[in-house]
């Protein structure tokens, strides 16, 4: 289990995260939702060890992440950024191969190459394998980044809006790949998402952030209520079950009350174990 315990983070003097608590279980998908700028990306970066939290710890299968060497951490956590700057582009194959770096001393072994090729094939990227990554569409590039994180062979995956550049079909495909992998390889997945419908459908647990704090967390049907959505997003929404899925339909912008977001929802689950 990946445990985030009472995490705080500041950018300079601005508090961005406050007392974040989350548990990512193996084989389960936990989605972070919340409006722009609430700290979803920041939270993922803190967990991945890219940013150093001001307080709080991340514990991976009983080991404190802070005490782990970088290479060791990279064997436990794969991180897929929202987007990636490219300078001096490599090919798709080389980019995915880079995911093997925690296992590579100075040049990739035969195993590393085979593993890379397998993943490229699984992700249906074989046709692009010899293309340079700066010549891909946004969606293709996003798939390559996921493939690279998969090549890391980690137990946990951190995904920052993995479907933000994908079309309808690829979005579904990508999420299905992710949950299938989570189940099959018993990986724990923590992802930031904007689409409430899809996150409700594909996650076991929802963590709703508002202004750097956990607003609520729980099963999708518990977290995605009209009241919560009004408080967090300032949007009136209709929520109903349809075709076996939770349907969240935004209706209109709500009047923003001054005390918005300060209401403590009754069902904040105690996440300490």
């Amino acid at each position, binding site marked *: 289990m990946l445990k985030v315990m009472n995490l705080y983070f500041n950018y300079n003097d601005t508090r961005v995260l406050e007392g974040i608590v989350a548990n990512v279980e193996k084989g389960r998908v936990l989605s972070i939702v919340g409006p722009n700028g609430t700290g979803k990306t920041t939270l993922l970066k803190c967990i991945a060890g890219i940013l150093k939290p001001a307080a709080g710890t991340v514990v991976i299968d009983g080991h404190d992440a802070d005490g782990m060497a*970088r290479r060791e951490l*990279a064997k436990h956590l794969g991180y897929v950024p929202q987007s990636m700057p*490219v300078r*001096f582009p*490599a*090919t798709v194959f080389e980019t995915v191969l880079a995911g093997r770096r925690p296992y590579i001393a100075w040049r990739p072994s035969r195993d590393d*190459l085979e593993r890379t090729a397998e993943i490229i*094939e699984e992700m249906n990227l074989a046709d692009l*394998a010899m293309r340079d990554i700066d010549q891909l569409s946004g969606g293709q590039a996003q798939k390559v980044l996921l493939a690279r994180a998969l090549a890391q062979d980690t137990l946990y995956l951190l995904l920052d809006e993995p479907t933000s550049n994908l079309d309808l079909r690829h979005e579904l495909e990508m999420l299905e790949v992710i949950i299938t992998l989570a189940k099959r390889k018993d990986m724990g997945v923590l992802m930031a998402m904007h689409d409430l419908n899809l996150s409700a459908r594909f996650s076991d647990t929802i963590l709703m952030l508002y202004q750097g704090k956990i607003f609520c967390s729980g099963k999708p049907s518990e977290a995605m209520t009209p009241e919560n959505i009004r408080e967090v997003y300032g949007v009136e929404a209709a929520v109903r079950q349809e075709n076996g899925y939770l349907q969240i339909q935004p209706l209109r912008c709500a009047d923003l009350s001054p005390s918005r977001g300060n209401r403590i929802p009754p069902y904040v689950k105690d996440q300490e174990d």
Partner: protein
Amino acid sequence: MNNIADDLCRGYKARADARALFLAAAFFLLLTAMAIGLCIGASGMEFREVIASLLKDTGRGHSIIWMLRLPRIVMAMLVGFGMGLAGAVFQAILRNPLASPFTLGVGSAAGFGAVSVILVFGGGFQTWYIACGAFLFSLISAALILAVAKMKRASSETMILTGIAQMFLFSSLTSLLQYMGTMEQVHEVVFWFFGSLSKAGWREIGLAAAMILLPFPALLWRAWDFNLLSSGDESALALGVNVKRLRMSAVVAASLVTAGGICFTGVIGFVGLVAPHITRMVIGNDHQFLLPASGLVGALIVVFADTLGRTVWAPQVIPIGIVTSFIGVPFFFYLLMKRTREYW
């Protein structure tokens, strides 16, 4: 393993093999260029005579080969290799295609360090003093660039502007030193700036070789990490690279290489910028191959330029820096025009 995955692996290996082939070809070409350079000179020795003088003591011929031509060619090779290598490393760690020892001002700083040692100690200095002075100042200027790069949102442009500012600063300081120096000292410095390759003796070569070649294996060992830097610090961190330590140690290594290349020959600017780019255009951005190949291409350019500089206007010798630019610039333009897409 099934067919598709097998094909993919084979595709990757084929590319790696092609790159290794390029390395081998560049190495062979370099040896050839050095051999040609050895056979050409003012004294007009024949090929057979050159070989004989190289192997056994034949009196005058022997000393021409061993005391004049060979040191000069070996020094040209070392300097070119160092500039190409340092350029590739600076470009990788700053993620900046405009970076090179020259454009970052690191070369001028090293030059200033060397010149101040020459002037301060007058005639009474040891060769390794010059090397130390050059290294010290190249390190200072590289640290400054690194500090600027760390500043929030320091763009490529900011870094290069800082570099150019440094270049002017250190050139002016060098001029000031000359202005204040005596006639002999000034002569010494001018000679250092232009006479360059011809002054290299085996002692200097040994020192330069140590400064350029010793950091090379360490840099090559980190080649994979340089590859990861190209997709940003965050990705590199997430893949287990200790980015800060990598940058620091690479900057020290590249400064040492730059100082080694410059301290006995003066600033040969252009090679450090173009050699990595020429190499990129041919074999791509994998630093496992890019680092050694940039060095070899740089060496090839300087050795070739030196041979040309000694022959076209013989017995006059055109300074190496000038010839390098004359052949490097048009060739680079040609490649720029010919390329089909952006490589950086």
